[in-house]
């Protein structure tokens, strides 16, 4: 059987003429159509458009185009606007929405010759840590279908873990790439805020949202990052950077680390527990590779979840005010007045979790409470960012668990929103500080994959990528597949 498990592997096969992009794409679509019935990881499979893109890529290759990304199939999280293809953000509100334009990320991937086979399932408007809030149904974790894949990029994570695609785009507001990557045993990178354009990416919390790759390994994450990233004048928070290493990753892969790193272990992130044994083993492995480990402290960590839920909910309540039943999206039947049109369209179009976030957001922004909540949270946000700045004066990178638990059972946390929000404990501080962070598989707990998180200073995605690539050359956790003996 041909190995379609990584982008790099498929790229080599295409270059050698082992198969065409059309054959590769047909194989992917066939597999999704048979195997995704068990997972529900896709909302839309865009077979026709994918085969057109693949045929165009094959034609370019025949004409001498040798770009490594040419003709590689992948999937988009259904939060990126795609001209002519359904974009739902996992919501009834947008269940019939066909965007009139492409997100910049979508354009970048297409310009690199990559082939989008479809759009993956997600928590509604990216609000959730279990993919159970999707209007299109929950997604199953390929390691145990009774369990959640994490969220909100749960469809992307499950599709990659199950081998339906080698790579998918994701977005991460408080952990929505990293936590599902951890729960599904794959590699996920949330880049620095501003690294990848947010234009055409349906907004949840604009000061936190960031797109990133979800892949089998670090090499593919680097390849995806190099295609997704770049300055975009259409996003006013897009960063103007000139990082030479980024472009080199497309052609040359990840450069080897030229010296050992000092890796910080934030004491606030390590709790006792059987499932933490995988992280302990990973620490030993990193020491064996010559790196030194050093305890550090990030003293405002405990405040991060409350701060995040103030800021993210406030920004969400503002961003989601555009869904009013007037210009696009769901409209209620027979509105009696404009007010009735707004209120019933939103009541019917939004699911329970979205409303659960709009209300605290509205509350903390309302007259009399702004200073006590929103402004207070912004001040603590600075303290959290400063904690990281201080830590990075002593260490190159930070290592933490990605999530507090392995994949949990479906419906286990749905009745307790505050318990569900604790899933974000280790991922939201980095989001608040805008820093790049990556989750890579580092072991198993009772048959379920566990991830470790590598956090770097702003715009230094090269560091976690290089360390992850080195770790993955010496371990095989990232090669384990659901259904195989562990």
């Amino acid at each position: 059987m041909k190995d379609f498990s990584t982008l790099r592997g498929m790229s080599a096969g295409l270059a050698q003429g082992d198969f065409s992009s059309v054959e590769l794409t047909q194989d992917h679509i066939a597999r999704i159509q048979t195997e995704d019935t068990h997972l529900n990881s896709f909302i839309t499979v865009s077979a026709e458009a994918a085969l057109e893109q693949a045929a165009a890529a094959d034609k370019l290759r025949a004409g001498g185009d040798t770009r490594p990304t040419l003709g590689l199939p992948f999937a988009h999280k259904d939060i990126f606007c795609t001209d002519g293809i359904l974009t739902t953000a996992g919501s009834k509100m947008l269940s019939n929405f066909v965007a009139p334009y492409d997100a910049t990320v979508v354009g970048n991937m297409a310009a690199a010759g990559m082939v989008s086979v479809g759009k993956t399932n997600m928590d509604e408007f990216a609000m959730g840590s279990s993919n159970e809030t999707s209007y299109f149904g929950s997604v199953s974790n390929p390691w145990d279908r009774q369990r959640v894949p994490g969220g909100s990029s749960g469809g992307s994570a499950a599709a990659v873990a199950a081998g339906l695609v080698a790579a998918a785009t994701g977005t991460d507001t408080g952990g929505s790439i990293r936590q599902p990557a951890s729960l599904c045993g794959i590699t996920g990178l949330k880049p620095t805020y501003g690294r990848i354009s947010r234009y055409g990416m349906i907004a949840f919390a604009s000061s936190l949202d960031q797109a990133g790759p979800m892949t089998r390994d670090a090499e593919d994450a680097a390849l995806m990052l190099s295609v997704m990233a770049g300055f975009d004048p259409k996003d006013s928070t897009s960063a103007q950077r000139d990082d030479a290493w980024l472009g080199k990753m497309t052609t040359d892969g990840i450069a080897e680390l030229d010296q050992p790193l000092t890796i910080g272990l934030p004491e606030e992130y390590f709790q006792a527990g059987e499932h933490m044994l995988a992280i302990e083993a990973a620490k030993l492995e990193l020491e064996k590779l010559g790196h030194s480990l050093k305890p550090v402290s990030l003293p405002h960590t405990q405040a991060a979840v409350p701060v995040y839920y103030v800021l993210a909910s406030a920004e969400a309540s503002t961003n989601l005010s555009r869904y009013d039943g007037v210009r696009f999206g769901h409209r209620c039947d027979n509105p009696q007045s404009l007010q009735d049109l707004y209120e019933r369209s939103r009541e019917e179009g939004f699911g329970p979790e979205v409303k659960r976030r709009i209300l605290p957001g509205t509350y903390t922004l309302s007259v009399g409470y702004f200073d006590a909540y929103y402004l207070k949270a912004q001040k603590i946000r600075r303290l959290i960012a400063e904690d990281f700045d201080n830590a990075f004066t002593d260490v190159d990178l930070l290592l933490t668990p990605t999530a507090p638990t392995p994949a949990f059972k479906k419906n286990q946390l749905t009745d307790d929103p505050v318990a569900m929000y604790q899933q974000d404990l280790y991922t939201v501080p980095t989001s608040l500080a805008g820093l790049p962070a990556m989750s890579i598989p580092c072991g198993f707990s009772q048959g379920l994959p566990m991830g470790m998180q590598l956090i770097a200073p702003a715009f230094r995605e090269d560091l976690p990528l290089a360390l992850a690539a080195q770790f993955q050359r010496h371990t095989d956790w990232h090669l384990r597949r659901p259904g195989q003996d562990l």
Partner: protein
Amino acid sequence: MSQETPETPIDVAHLAGLARLALDNDASAQVAADLQSIMAMIDAMRAVDTDTVLPLSHPLDAVVRLRSDVVTESPDPQHFQRHAPATADQYYLVPRVVE
């Protein structure tokens, strides 16, 4: 204007009105309970001393870039209004507001 957080239960009906969300009576009890527990979780942050700290709105403390106010594209209204619930002559239709 008070900047204190409330001692009394949150008025969910008022809040839903501000958020333009119709909430039926059956749902509002659960919504109120969830909101109270979320706000209780959030209130833990009040213990942090922030007297001398400036707020951080952009995670990297960067200034949002401005651009010249020039037309860069001229979208086709028909293309953009394809999925509007109700339109006429390039306007969006809503229930009559002024009789």
